[in-house]
């Protein structure tokens, strides 16, 4: 559990995961994300820069 909390904190600190957007069941799955995968997500987040202050980024918007 400590491991899961640590992973959750890393993802939250990096601005990748907002606990409010996920159910408790989904949050529990964070423990299954490997450290390597978290590293990749953090690198991608850093590449994008900080999330915008508004909430528009939570609106689905990728057109294909």
């Amino acid at each position, binding site marked *: 559990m400590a491991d899961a909390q640590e992973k959750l904190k890393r993802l939250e600190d990096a601005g990748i995961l907002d606990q409010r957007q996920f159910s408790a069941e989904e949050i529990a799955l964070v423990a*299954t994300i490997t450290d390597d995968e978290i590293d990749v997500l953090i690198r991608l987040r850093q590449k*994008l820069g900080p999330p915008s202050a508004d909430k528009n980024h939570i609106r689905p918007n*990728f057109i294909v």
Partner: protein
Amino acid sequence: MDDAGSTEASVTSTQATDPSRSGAALWMKITLAQDLVNTAAQRFWSRPTLPRFFPSFLMELYSLVSCSVPLMQSAFERASELSASDPLAAVTAAYLEQHIQEESHHDEWLLNDLVAAGMNRATLVRRAPGTGVARLVGAQYCWIRHAHPAALFGYLAVIEGNPPLPQHLEEIQLLTKYPPETFRCLHLHAADDVEHLNELRSTISRLPLSGDKAALISMSAFATMDGLVSILGELTKQEQECS
């Protein structure tokens, strides 16, 4: 695709063993990647100079859409070859057989819409996909042939994972001043993708996954996310260099 290679280590991961939990965990990772794509796309759509580089975006979009069915066809063929002795390949083949039908001819619809907007049909058809699209799609061909065709689930989940709302397409239309005909296929696709996404999520959540295959699909999702962000970034950079 700067960071795609850095996911390599995760392919050797063997974490998940319970298939239902493994599928749900995979979807959780994909969701995190989808959110990052959303952030990048929102930044793209918010640029005041969007009308100037919107045609370039449409050309990239056409390239991506026209590559999609042949890519899925390749994955379907490989999955079919493996399916007799590989349950994951069998599920992959069954899903793709249906999804190929759903996605067929969307490139032609989009082409017609772009022509209606004043773009040249022959130029669009003749144009080779750019490096961004080639990297994105080429990585999938590599994983399909040299790893497992189920890798394509990661690509599909990210590509189809954030369908725009009709209201957002209308906002883009107003901003770019393109005629409504330009957005016919996009509106249809956006509406369909909500259903497709539900089907995809349901399929991924039930995949008979080993830990290494789950890691492969998440690597595919992360690489796709990185590739899409690169394409949006490249378009923005080109626009800045021209202005």
